[in-house]
């Protein structure tokens, strides 16, 4: 398996690894995938009162491309409104990381993780 330099960079120096308090009303948590499928992504966002994502953290069990996809989206999410965040598409992630076809599912999972984190945040706020 040959990886692009961008995947290797994110894999070796993952950005925003960690956890936020999932009980904090400002935090939305999304966890997608399953161990038996080889990938699990946990993505957390912290949303300010103005509706802008202030912080994002991830943990990923998966291949180098899965780690890179989730690391990349934490960078992209910061400073975006929830509506802007919802427009992030897996194809953008795949293009940015130059993922080969067999790794496209990693970018799909990252998009799903964003949606799940937003849904969790919105559920906490009765939306």
């Amino acid at each position: 398996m040959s990886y692009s330099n961008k995947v290797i960079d994110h894999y070796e120096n993952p950005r925003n690894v960690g956890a936020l308090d999932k009980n904090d009303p400002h935090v939305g948590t999304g966890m997608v995938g399953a161990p038996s499928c080889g990938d699990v992504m946990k993505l957390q966002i912290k949303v300010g009162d103005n509706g802008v994502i202030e912080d994002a953290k991830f943990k990923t069990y998966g291949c180098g491309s899965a780690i890179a996809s989730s690391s990349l989206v934490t960078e992209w999410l910061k400073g975006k409104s929830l509506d802007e965040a919802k427009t992030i598409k897996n194809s953008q992630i795949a293009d940015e990381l130059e993922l080969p076809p067999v790794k496209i599912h990693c970018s799909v999972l990252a998009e799903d993780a964003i949606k799940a984190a937003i849904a969790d945040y919105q559920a906490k706020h009765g939306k």
Partner: protein
Amino acid sequence: MKIKLPIYLDNSATTKIDPRVLAKMLPYLTDDFGNPASRSHSFGWTAEAAVENARQQVADTVGCDSKEIIWTSGATESINLALKGAAEFYQEKGKHLITVKTEHKATLDTMRELERIGFEVTYLSPETNGLIDIAKFAAAIRPDTIIASVMFVNNEIGVIQDISAIGQLCREKGIIFHVDAAQAIGKVDFSLSDLNVDLMSFSAHKAYGPKGIGALYVRRKPRVRLLPLIHGGGHERGFRSGTLPAHQIVGMGEAFAIAKAEMALELPKLKYLQNKLLTGLQAIPEIYVNGDLEHRVPQNLNVSFNFVEGESLMMAIKDIAVSSGSACTSASLEPSYVLRAIGRNDELAHSSIRFSIGRFNTEEEIDYTIKLLQEKVAKLRELSPLWEMFQDGIDVENFQWDSHDTQRDVILH
């Protein structure tokens, strides 16, 4: 001493040719290039003498008569010749064969082919330690069982089967017994004179010899009959036609002779390094050794690292050359069928690493490997949501994962 990277720890896949073996081979590629079948001049006689000397070396190593050794292109061909050749010859006696789910593909695929042409095959499940329960083996025997095939040493998990006991049972029942001994040379002290084995397959490149050469042992007393697979000039008493590659054969003979002569010194060294590696890896929590530790060759250690994913682990340890039970590193999608057969779940099968230590590995290399694994596994677990859940006391294996559809989400509160 500076360590040269990557470190080769994949000696069950193949081994580096021993320089002493190479030195013996070279003349047969240059001045002594004759065809061993040429009877009319000294080029042929020289090559033939070298081939017969090598045959004697192999026979001495495995404890049989040199007339019982047939040259082939490797263990894969030996296994094909043994199973197909015997099944065809003895098919009037019965149509049933027995083997084990953890055999090498050379055996399993040959069995599939025999099924396709009308034979019936029982694939026994080993116990969770990788070993066969003799009672279960005995129970699988039918009146029409003609052949059983069991590997001496498993290539993935290194466990050693009780060939002596299985052989005795087969002999009592009149079943032809074939043993794949590709991984056993230089690692298990045995002699065919003590075993009730009828056919045994060997390969040179797993024992510091060249690739592309192997041998099949065919017992003469009581005599075992085979139909050949490859027809032609009637070489190897008609069992396997084709001009003999004298240089390869000389290499195999020398490699086997060295393996026998040095085994008493080499095994304790391998055992020491294996123990060292095991102790070092056991400092990492949540690791699982695959396969029995006692009935195991000292060159193999197969370990699963829980809560890290196999492909990212392989990526993290590029400095060492090892094999993985992960599907991502091979062409297939299934994780190791051997680990599945001994009851490992997919995650543990995916995160398994086979370390196979060899003649040329040093203690410094093992130290480096231990340090690398300790660091990288810790780093990947820092990244792993499963490790976080485990630390929080959540039962990760029985958690309600949404495993079929990644579009739907599992949300943890």
